């Protein structure tokens, strides 16, 4: 470690290991955090970042290795102990109580007390409002958490972590679902915390965020520590090379499209209160992106096309055939596949094995004499695991044991195994590392070249600009613009999405 700091480190994790059965999740987890620094932890999906975090959190006990806090060796026997030692965690998966109020979610177990040790709700709501003000967001502290958008859930998680005033704050991908403005505010908060002497460990797959907010960076690969360096001493390319172990090619490998016949034809699609009069087409061999602000209704359009939600009016045709309303199975049989936004809830059955998840949408095809044969199921899953370079230990393990990026690959495999003619893919690379992201993009590109039609929903502008042949911008449930690849740029999309320029809406 090259750092020469006067203050001693506040937290040191040294050569921690963690196994789950035969899975070596963490081989050599090492990190040193100094007071007043923001420290980025980078690595591919499955590199062991979240496992390291959970060891810091006391959720897992390390099999070996040492943890020092303030120079003293400690062992946590639960999340409470870690928190008592001054470590506050934002987990990768939201950990909210859907039935409780937002404020109570933040202060669970530490609610401000009034007379007679009873909870002082007014004080609690005030405190929550104060934290939200620091984050610059508006959220009613007394509403229940159920029904909060993913972004708002993440905000509550951040607010919760901040409320501890901890000396170490660990954030596992807090920005995955946030907008730029919210990310910016979060960085400001991190700056304030640093000024107060706290250490922040920040995990992200957006490398530029590390440069924007952190002083040092630690890189992990395959469960092991690779290097720690001051941020000024590394470049994006260095980092990627350390993470992936090689150089990456061009980020958006877009092959010029040769659109063929119309595959998806949506006319005057409407779902009352959500979106209105949506008409567009997707052709064979092209990627059409749905862009817009969070809450613009993109996901809802996709759900209605696939038949998860019922549409109020309008028609959806796939290769000329009209799809019945509200019947996902009919859409699937017509050749539509949907990779949903929330892979843990919608994309995967978390407690089912990897192979069964891959096969779940193809069971009818696997049938012989009406029965499913395990060998055919295995074969299908193995084929796709290989093609998507899935990292796993055993096909029979539940998908919940996979890292986020690998889970996303299982969802992709599950749908590609059906050999669809139209792939609807919602937030294809949310929470996915740069290496895998490039792979997903390359995969999409090659699929499109082979004649697939893709409808992509993404909140990442670069992804939209890099991958899409056409961009349809939604605003408040209506189409605000339909741009060709040539017309689409950051400016034109933003104008349409926010309705700033009447010209853009034309």
């Amino acid at each position, binding site marked *: 470690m090259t750092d020469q700091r006067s203050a001693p480190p506040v937290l040191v994790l040294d050569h921690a290991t963690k196994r789950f059965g035969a899975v070596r999740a963490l081989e050599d987890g090492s990190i040193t955090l100094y007071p007043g620094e923001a420290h980025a932890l980078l690595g591919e999906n499955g590199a062991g970042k979240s496992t390291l975090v959970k060891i810091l*959190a006391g*959720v897992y006990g390390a099999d070996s290795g040492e943890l020092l806090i303030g120079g003293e060796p400690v062992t946590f026997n*639960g*999340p*409470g102990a870690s*928190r008592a030692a001054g470590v506050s*965690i934002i*987990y990768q998966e939201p*950990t*909210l*109580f*859907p*039935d*409780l109020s937002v404020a*109570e979610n933040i202060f*669970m*177990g*530490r*609610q401000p*007390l009034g007379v007679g*040790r*009873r*909870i002082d709700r007014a004080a609690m709501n005030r405190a929550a409002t104060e934290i939200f003000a620091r984050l610059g967001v*508006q959220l*009613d502290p*007394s*509403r229940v958490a159920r*029904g909060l958008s993913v972004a708002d859930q993440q905000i509550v998680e951040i607010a919760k972590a901040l409320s501890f005033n901890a000396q170490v704050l660990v954030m596992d991908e807090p920005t995955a679902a*946030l*907008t*730029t*403005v*919210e*990310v*910016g505010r979060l960085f400001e908060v991190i700056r304030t915390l640093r000024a107060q002497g706290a250490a922040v460990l920040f995990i992200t797959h*957006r490398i*530029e965020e590390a440069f924007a907010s952190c002083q040092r960076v630690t890189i992990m690969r395959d469960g092991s520590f690779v290097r720690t360096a001051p941020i000024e001493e590394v470049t994006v390319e260095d980092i990627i090379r350390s993470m992936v172990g090689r150089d990456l090619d061009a980020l958006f490998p877009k092959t010029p499209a040769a659109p063929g016949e119309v595959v998806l034809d949506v006319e005057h699609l409407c779902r009352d*209160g959500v979106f209105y009069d949506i008409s567009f087409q997707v052709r064979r061999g092209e990627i059409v992106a749905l*862009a*817009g*602000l*969070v*809450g613009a209704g993109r996901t809802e359009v996709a759900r209605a096309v696939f038949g998860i939600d019922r549409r109020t009016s309008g028609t959806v045709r796939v290769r000329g055939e009209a799809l019945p309303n509200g019947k996902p199975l009919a859409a699937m049989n017509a050749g539509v596949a949907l990779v949903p936004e929330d892979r843990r809830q919608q994309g995967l059955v978390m407690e089912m094995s990897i192979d069964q998840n891959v096969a779940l949408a193809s069971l009818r095809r696997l049938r012989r004499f009406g029965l499913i044969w395990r060998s055919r199921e295995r074969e299908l899953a193995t084929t796709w695991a290989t093609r998507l370079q899935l990292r796993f230990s055993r096909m029979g393990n539940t998908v919940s044991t996979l890292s986020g990026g690998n889970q996303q690959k299982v969802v992709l495999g599950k749908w590609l195994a059906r050999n669809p003619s139209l792939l609807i893919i919602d937030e294809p690379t949310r929470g996915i590392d740069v290496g895998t992201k490039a792979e997903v993009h390359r995969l999409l590109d090659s699929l499109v070249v082979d004649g697939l039609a893709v409808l992509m929903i993404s*909140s*990442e*502008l*670069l*992804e939209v600009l890099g991958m899409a042949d056409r961009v349809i911008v939604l605003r*408040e449930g209506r189409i605000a613009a339909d741009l060709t690849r040539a017309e689409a740029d950051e400016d034109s*999309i*933003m104008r349409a*999405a*926010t309705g700033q320029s009447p010209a853009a809406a034309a």
Partner: protein
Amino acid sequence: MSVITAPAAAPTERPVSRLESLLRARELGIALAILLVFGLTTLNNHAFARVASIQQLLIGAALIALLGVGETLVIVTRNVDLSVGSIVGLSAYIVGDLFKYHHNMPVVLGFVVAIAVGAAIGAINGFVTTVARVPSLVVTLAMLYIVRGVDGLIVNGKTIDPGSIPKAFTAVGYRTLFGIPWLAIIVAVVVATAGYAMRSFRSSRDLYGIGSNPDAAVLAGIPAGRRVFTAFLISGSLAGLAGALFLALHAQIDVSGGTGYELAVVAAVVVGGVAIFGGSGTVLGAALGAVLLNTINQALVASRISAFWNGAIAGGLLLVAIAFDRWLSLRVARSLQSAEGAHRDL
């Protein structure tokens, strides 16, 4: 930055109106349903509104309401306690047996023994559920069989007769204070205390957290095992208390005491708006659910409907009550969402 930016608008929260929050309280719907059943029956038969009838409504609902309090605590944590009925039977018999052979035993001791019996069984439920981490439905169903079996071995075909039980004890079952039955007052005190505690104390809020998201509860450092154990302990203790009150009310006890109460209690709790999968619901709602079901039962007899129709009508009304509650909560949820939507569209 690569992420699409939202305009920095500062939407203002729409204040929730009083009416809305009142409507959101599911207890109101149940209270309305009780009044409806009561009103309609009274139109049919004016005697239903007499003081004596109302006293009977309260007494008839008291035990199930009391059990509903404990059951709510347990269900809120995403568990269930099916052993309550058997606890009522066992604790009532044990206390009755004690009185039979020690007629001068202090009345208070009767209650203490009953509660202790219930607490012991509740502790076993809680221990097995939390330490072995097994579904409480299975544990308490097994306990139901075991406790009923033990009860049967103890009772062995005997009956504790009214003459064996001190008048001072049975008085609890029928005395009134300003026209309100003691039984109803005792239960009301328990409901009020539990209701207040469930809103106001950290440890009871933990129960909601555990039921709402068990994994998150662990991550939040909530001692989930201890809390769930306590919920079962309280449920068992209240069932023991209910056993003592059962004995006071009926002044006799044989092996059948409390048979079938488990489903009646779950029905009352569910009608009372407690989510069967945990996380939400109030003890007041559960108590009102018990009152509603008992009002329906007595209204049927009072309306001079043939006894053979009771079961079907009670079952049908139970379904209607659940569906109505669902409809109401959907409506409220929708109004909540449209309010939300309005602010998002700004």
